């Protein structure tokens, strides 16, 4: 295995394990300050939006908010399914089917 990948997997293992382990191991002895808990609560929504926005709005390095953007078009029904069904599996399947259909029209 290439050294670069070994280091990557090692680093990822460490930074994934620590947030999973630390609170469970030490929380009985220490309280997280209220303001930190508030901040942490926003992290998932913020990070997912920060990942998603460029992923569906920037195509080949340019902002593209037009009907020619198939990612944007596929995202709309995908959002609707996610909101009404609240099911990850179904949402992913609908998104995949939408993008395949849009690419063949």
């Amino acid at each position: 295995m290439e050294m670069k990948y070994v280091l990557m997997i090692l680093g990822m293992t460490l930074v994934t394990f620590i947030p999973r382990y630390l609170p469970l191991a030490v929380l009985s002895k220490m309280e997280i300050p209220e303001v930190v808990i508030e901040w942490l609560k926003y992290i998932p929504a913020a990070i997912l939006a920060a990942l998603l926005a460029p992923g569906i709005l920037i195509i080949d390095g340019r902002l593209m908010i037009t009907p020619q953007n198939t990612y944007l078009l596929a995202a709309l029904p995908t959002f609707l399914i996610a909101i009404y069904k609240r099911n990850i599996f179904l949402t992913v399947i609908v998104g995949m089917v939408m993008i395949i259909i849009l690419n063949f029209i």
Partner: protein
Amino acid sequence: MEEKYQDFFTGVKDSSPIIMGYIPIGIAYGILATKSGLGILETVSMSIFVFAGSSQLISIDMLARGSAIIPIIMMTFLVNLRHLLMSASFSLHFKGTGHKVMPFLSFLITDESFAVGNVKIKDKEYRASFFLGLGLSAYLGWVISSWIGASLGEIISDAGEYGLTFVLPAMFIALLVLQIQRRLDILVAVISGLFSLLFVYLLPGNWNVILATVIAATLGVVIERWR
């Protein structure tokens, strides 16, 4: 002793919806990983050691765009910060559990095992056994699906490839929608998305995501306290 095993196997049974969800995402991860230059060994090793679907998919995406290792690790850390809250909340269920089991229970915390475990764990007598059963079978499901994906990597059709490019955005959409509980969450998400779009043009690598997230979450706290 008997009951301990019973709770373990109840956990195994309750993992079936999680595994159903992991199969397509794990296979997609395996295929995309091998397409972005990882071998089967690296691809499956990452599932074995990291066991975090979204950050594995993100790391693959960043690798394909030529990202360096440090931003990938930082990104993984930020993406998985949410596990702090799950781990913190789980500490309520495992008050009497021995400290030797804790690393194993912690490793098995994912969005899905947390969501299912949180609902079903309350009436169990041997909670650690139950969660080990649930988490271990989900873990095996993830590792095996990504191995299948990695082996399929070479023989996937164009149509399938188009579909796979949207797996990650679609999963982000689903997870984002599931995260939204209050109006402020929507505001924070919109702010974060806008900052991320702005920073894409100003910053190298994936730093736009890290900075946008930190700014938006901080603004969320400020707005919440100031109102």
